[in-house]
């Protein structure tokens, strides 16, 4: 579905990403790890359309990707993802409102009632039906992320982008969220790209694990070379049971340390 | 009690420009030195503020008109003496109508003027001459600093003001001067007013001021190059040029000699003028809430006292001007 041809990205004379070639099939769950600052978020931004590749192309179904965000691609950030001035319910209803009347964001009575029903159903799925009238500041971190996910899934985007969505959550809540995301991924047959700092999480959730790292180094001018895709692993869905050899894991850990490590 | 250091204030107006000139050219210092005192002359841009400062005791003497002397310091209980009668307005204040050329046309109009000032008084006197009352017009208080700009808007159709604003305004297209102070000569008088008690305790202060004033008057009235230089300096200080300044002087009856000033001071008309002023002020509540009638505050003139002689607060005292006339300073 997605085809990425010789993608480069640089800011000024700092090359962030270089020579990325890959293809992604509909339904893939791609988890992405790499040292801090290596360009994972930048890559997501290019998929999203808020950054433009410096060289190369991203093709969606053979067509160049739209150069600005649209309803095809949903996103969940680590923070700030929800609208603070709207209640939980309105935060989801507005997703329908925006998609149905892009110019004003207003819905008539009947369409509003329909949107409300759909929103309530979605919130039920993410376990927020007891908090419909609360405002985001009254929610815990986990509840906020569940709301953000509900928002993003409302329009059934073909591609879902997640940038460290669970980084700020407690371990217990994180586990719940994993189940939620996997459930929704299966049900809606999404294509998911997820950045994480937690290798274990990456192995657990993904069907493919991408590791970003620099292949070339110039100690005098570290900005001369950018990171590329150094590993692209197919992960057996019987998760965790058959990790691909301790050596590989150690290698990945060493390259991406100190910011990525098996939690605990 | 006697003292050595005195403060005098004045504000920019054609008849008072000599005070600035005296300060800049050391005339005031010369006369103060002669009497062994020091006099600090301060220019204040806001006329009302200068009188308020004098009334509150910040200055020993201040340049003001006869009406303001009555309504501000005198009504405020500060016994004041008109030390120098400098000039009277002889066309320096006027009523201007836009698009109309008769005073009677003013009926029903908004009139922009500085409320409760001599302009207001002039308007009242003008209306009297055509048998109208103040209630026939609507007075809109307008600050003097903004008068010219205000007049150039279509909203303003009638105004009462003084020079140099007046001449700027009458030069504008379709403006007609329908009444001016030359029709009530000697009623709007520009004075140097001093605190009576201070003056009594320190006659040298009065002598120095009067001496300096008439020396400057002699210079100012000199038709030769010295006089012209002096007038030119005063012109620039007031923000105009020699031509503009002299045209203002034309509508001002300056008393260049003490004799001329004494003429007005000793005239019985002065008492009648002050009665007019007091009555106007009383009607507008300027004499204070406690004033039972227009004569509540006594005004002493050489020809007698107007109003209450037990509450004399404003005195026209010819003594010092007489000394100048007698060349005894």
């Amino acid at each position, binding site marked *: 579905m997605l085809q990425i041809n010789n993608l480069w990205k640089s800011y000024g004379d700092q090359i962030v990403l270089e020579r990325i070639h890959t293809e992604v099939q509909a339904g893939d769950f791609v988890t992405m790890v790499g040292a801090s600052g290596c360009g994972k978020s930048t890559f997501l931004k290019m998929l999203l359309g808020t950054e433009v590749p410096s060289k190369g192309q991203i093709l969606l179904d053979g067509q160049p990707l739209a150069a600005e965000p649209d309803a095809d691609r949903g996103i969940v950030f680590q923070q*700030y993802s929800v609208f*603070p001035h709207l209640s939980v319910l309105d935060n989801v209803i507005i997703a329908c409102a925006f998609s149905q009347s892009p110019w004003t964001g207003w819905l008539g009575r009947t369409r509003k009632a329909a949107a409300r029903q759909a929103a309530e159903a979605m919130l039920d799925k993410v376990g927020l039906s007891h908090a419909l009238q609360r405002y985001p500041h009254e929610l815990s971190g986990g509840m906020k992320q569940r709301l953000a996910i509900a928002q993003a899934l409302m329009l059934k985007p073909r591609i879902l982008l997640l940038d460290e969505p669970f980084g700020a959550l407690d371990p217990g809540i994180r586990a719940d969220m994993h189940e939620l995301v996997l459930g929704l991924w299966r049900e809606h047959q999404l294509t998911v790209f997820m950045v994480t700092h937690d290798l274990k999480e990456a192995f657990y959730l993904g069907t493919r694990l991408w590791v970003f790292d620099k292949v070339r180094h110039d100690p005098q001018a570290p900005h001369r070379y950018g990171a590329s895709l150094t590993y692209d692993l197919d992960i057996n869905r019987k998760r965790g049971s058959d990790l691909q050899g301790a050596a590989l894991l150690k290698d990945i850990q060493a390259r991406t340390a100190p910011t990525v490590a098996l939690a605990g | 009690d006697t003292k050595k250091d005195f403060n005098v204030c004045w504000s920019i107006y054609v008849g008072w420009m000599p005070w600035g000139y005296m300060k800049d050219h050391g005339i005031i210092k010369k006369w103060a030195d002669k009497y062994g005192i020091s006099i600090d002359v301060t220019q204040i841009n806001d006329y009302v503020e200068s009188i308020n400062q004098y009334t509150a005791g910040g200055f020993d003497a201040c340049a003001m008109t006869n009406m303001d002397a009555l309504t501000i310091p005198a009504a405020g209980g500060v016994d004041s003496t008109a030390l120098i009668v400098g000039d009277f307005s002889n066309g320096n204040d006027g009523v201007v109508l836009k698009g109309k050329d008769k005073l009677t046309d003013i009926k029903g109009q908004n009139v922009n003027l500085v409320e409760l000032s001599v302009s207001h008084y002039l308007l009242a006197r003008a209306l009297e001459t055509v048998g109208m009352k103040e209630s026939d017009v609507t007075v809109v208080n*307008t600050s003097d600093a903004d008068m010219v700009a205000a007049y150039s808007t279509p909203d303003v159709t009638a105004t009462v003001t003084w020079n140099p604003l007046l001449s700027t305004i009458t030069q504008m297209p379709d403006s007609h001067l329908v009444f001016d102070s030359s029709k009530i000569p000697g009623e709007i008088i520009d004075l140097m007013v001093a605190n009576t008690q201070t003056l009594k305790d320190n006659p040298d202060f009065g002598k120095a001021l009067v001496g300096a004033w008439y020396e400057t008057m002699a210079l100012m009235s000199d038709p030769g190059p010295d006089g012209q230089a002096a007038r030119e300096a005063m012109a620039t200080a007031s923000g105009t040029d020699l031509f503009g300044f002299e045209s203002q002087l034309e509508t001002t009856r300056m008393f260049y000699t003490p004799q001329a000033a004494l003429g007005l001071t000793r005239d019985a008309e002065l008492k009648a003028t002050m009665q007019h002023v007091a009555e106007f002020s009383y009607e507008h509540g300027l004499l204070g809430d406690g004033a039972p009638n227009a004569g509540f505050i006594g005004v002493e003139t050489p020809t007698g006292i107007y109003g209450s002689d037990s509450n004399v607060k404003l005195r026209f005292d010819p003594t010092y001007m007489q000394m100048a006339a007698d060349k005894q300073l």
Partner: protein
Amino acid sequence: MKRMINLRPDRSWRMMLTLLPFALLLLVYILSSDARLALNPNDKLLPSFAQFASTMQQMVFEPSKRTGELLFWQDTFSSLQRLGLGILIAATLGLVIGLLTGALPLVSAAFSPLLTVVSLIPPMALLPILFIVFGLGELSKVVLIVIGIFPFIARDIQKRAQEIPAEQLVKSQTLGAATPAILLRVLLPQLMPRLIDAVRLSLGAGWLFLIAAEAIASTDGLGYRIFLVRRYLSMDVILPYVAWITLLAFLVDWLLAWANRRLYPWYHQGGL
């Protein structure tokens, strides 16, 4: 003995401490006033409280001889009307300009520098031009207030709009929203409480410009009265009027703060 930084007065102490400086100021006033009045019973600069009472009694309760109005209420009403209208217009204008320049890079490129320059011009110095354009009536007074405070509000709102996390704008776009919908449904509602804050900050300037405007050409208003009676140094009118203006300013500020808390609870409890 605790460190000074750790000492907290309890309720009654706090009350005492709060009242203390006011009581002291009052005392200083009474003593100075008495001293001046002893020297000159007609002194107008620092009137006694009896004088205040009788003057204000007249202005508040007795119809004026000249116009038949209750001057005090008439003045208050006119001034509040002008101030209210001026602030309303300035807030609306500031909100629109701030929103557009804050959210749309193109509009910002065109108008931000102009806005900066306009906010630096002292409006008082341009009065003549204002008069020509807007006349001398109520309009020009309102316009002076508007010109005096809208650049501040607009720049504040612009900054606030830029502070709203870009993630929200991106999120809206992934939900399909076009620019007008983002402006109206995402930015505008979040800027409302910030607008109220900006208005509160600019109220002081608003009063200042109101008083200045009323000093220029007017027939009533709190500022008008103060300037009029300044001509004969009636501090028995000026001081109560100043106290009244201060009280009104305080009330308006308090009311806005209260409304802001009531209307936008999400803004105050930590925001996002």
